[in-house]
């Protein structure tokens, strides 16, 4: 029977106790030691473009109003009235100058300040009994953004977001900065799956091994030409501090040709070259790797694929694929249930026609109805169910792909001249990234929260 200590020891050597994907005790520990101090994605700034716009998002059980106040500042406020604890905002999106608690009518400006308190004088003797000035909805302990991605950290002493992300920022830019205007996002689609949240996070981080099998139907129907086994093996996986992902190796060509190969129009390529550093461009242009799926620890994922979205395209199989980007949050509900929040994202400066087709590409491939996604979830639900039994506590899943028994790599990491991104990258089938993700998970769970 595994104790918490030997769970973490096993994780460190790439052997995964199967029950970690459905274990009530470990979920309690994740709440206490992981989600209480990791940076958790909540929204993108483009969801609240106008002053007064807000969305309501959760970090596990805590509800936050993410609002652009009347002065244009983006804030994250705990959605609980200071008086009796009612949610002051029960809609999930909208535009408001004030939030009024429906219980006793306390009201707050959209920057969180308490402004209205019915019968203040009669009930409290005015400011002598209860000083309104300075009272605000509780701000999120820590709140920061990177390329418009908004994150909350429940730990007031957390390291700054940019330090937390570290070198993974290099790769985040591929998805979230394709012009000076940045992303615009739509959604999210939200649905619940009876699967543990870690499975999707691991899958997006580095599971290129599943693509030829799980997603064979996508190749069968000619929707996406890349997932063939050979192509996945030739792609590089990378890991850089708090995140990692998969790439596809593209046919020979320079930066422009390779961006065109996945369907970017020339005007977008021009803008991309204005904002990606020369080093970022070299990963695509010289090394020949096009970013695909990725995960930022703990539960934020990204995907970038380039399917065929129109009938007419099928007649010209050599061209006319189109890329899309999706942002994905694996929001834990319990040890065996996850709310998936899936946004479509596109560069704000992209031509309207591109946005339309890219949205279509997203819907066909990912999200609640996406044809890739459908088969993924089937696997994850099945895995989670089985992980809840007693036999799963006797099983160590082998997550050592890419390593010999003595820990030497089956294929050496790519040298710097073959992969210009930071962190560690390699080609060939491997589970390096899944191991890195679970090691971070184990490190968090293994370290007590200071009182």
């Amino acid at each position, binding site marked *: 029977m595994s104790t918490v200590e030997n769970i973490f020891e096993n994780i460190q050597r790439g052997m995964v106790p199967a029950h970690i994907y459905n274990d009530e005790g470990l979920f309690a520990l994740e709440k206490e030691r992981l989600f209480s101090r990791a940076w958790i994605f909540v929204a993108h700034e483009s969801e609240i473009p106008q002053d007064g716009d807000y969305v309501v998002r959760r970090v596990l059980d805590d509800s936050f109003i993410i609002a652009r106040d009347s002065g244009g500042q983006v804030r994250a406020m705990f959605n609980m009235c200071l008086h009796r604890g009612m949610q002051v905002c029960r809609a999930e*999106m909208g535009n408001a100058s004030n939030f009024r608690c429906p219980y006793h009518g306390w009201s707050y400006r959209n920057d969180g300040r308490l402004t209205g308190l019915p019968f203040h004088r009669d009930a409290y003797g005015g400011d002598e009994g209860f000083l309104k000035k300075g009272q605000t909805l509780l701000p999120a302990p820590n709140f920061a953004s990177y390329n418009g991605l908004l994150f909350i950290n429940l730990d007031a002493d957390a390291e700054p977001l940019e330090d937390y992300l570290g070198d993974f920022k290099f790769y985040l830019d591929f998805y979230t900065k394709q012009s000076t205007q940045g992303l615009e996002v*739509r959604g*999210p689609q939200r649905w619940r799956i009876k699967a543990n949240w870690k499975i999707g996070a691991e899958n997006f981080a580095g599971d290129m091994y599943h693509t030829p099998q799980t997603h064979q139907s996508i190749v069968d129907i000619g929707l996406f030409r890349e997932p063939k086994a050979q192509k996945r093996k030739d792609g590089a996986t990378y890991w850089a501090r708090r995140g990692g992902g998969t790439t596809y190796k593209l046919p020979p060509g320079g930066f422009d040709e390779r961006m065109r190969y996945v369907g970017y129009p020339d005007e977008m390529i021009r803008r991309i070259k204005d904002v990606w550093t020369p080093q970022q461009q070299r990963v695509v242009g010289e090394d020949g790797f096009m970013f695909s799926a990725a995960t930022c620890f703990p539960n934020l994922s990204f995907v970038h694929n380039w399917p065929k979205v129109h009938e007419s395209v099928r007649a010209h199989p050599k061209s006319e694929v189109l890329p899309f980007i999706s942002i994905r949050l694996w929001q834990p509900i319990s040890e065996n249930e996850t709310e998936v929040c899936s946004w479509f994202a596109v560069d704000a400066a992209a031509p309207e026609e591109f946005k339309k087709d890219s949205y279509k590409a997203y819907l066909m491939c990912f999200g609640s109805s996406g044809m890739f996604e459908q088969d993924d979830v089937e696997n994850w639900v099945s895995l989670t169910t089985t992980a809840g039994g007693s036999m799963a506590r006797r099983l160590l899943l082998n997550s050592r792909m890419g390593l010999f028994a003595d820990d030497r790599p089956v294929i050496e990491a790519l040298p710097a001249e073959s992969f210009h991104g930071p962190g560690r990258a390699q080609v060939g089938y491997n589970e390096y990234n899944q191991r890195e993700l679970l090691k971070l998970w184990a490190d968090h769970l293994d370290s007590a929260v200071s009182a």
Partner: protein
Amino acid sequence: MRKPLPFNDIRHLQAHQFLVDEAYLLDAQQYRPWLDTLTEDIHYVMPVRVTTARGTGFGTSPGMAHFDEDKYSLSQRVARMETEHAWTEDPPSRLRHFITNVRSFECEDPDELVVESAELLFRSRGDVNESALVSCGREDLLRRCADGPHAWKLARRKIIADEAVLRMQNLAVFL
């Protein structure tokens, strides 16, 4: 403006029959014949519902949907189901589309009908998984494409889900 049809109007009866026959095809996952009941210019859309204040004026997520399909994308979804590698439906779900509250409306174009219905989809997979439900309303546009009782095809469908967060693992189904 559209005018409600009495329940004994032959067009209402044909519309109702269209929906019931369609429900049979969807329960049985006979998707190839189902495609034939759609016009070439079909627009099949299922917006994402959101919880908003009553005065907000909208209840769907701007610019986002669960489905936003044309004939090509629906055909691709069906083609995928016909491969031997659509794992999510192999073994297949047991499906039941319950259709009720059917109302039909005459349009300016005599060859078109607006048809509203309520739908409850029950989906059961395996033996230990909990079954799942999707409740929704539908606003359809039927177009007369031939003579006779089976003359109608579906030209537009808007599926109004009743949940903001779907309690179903995926939409490898049609509504």
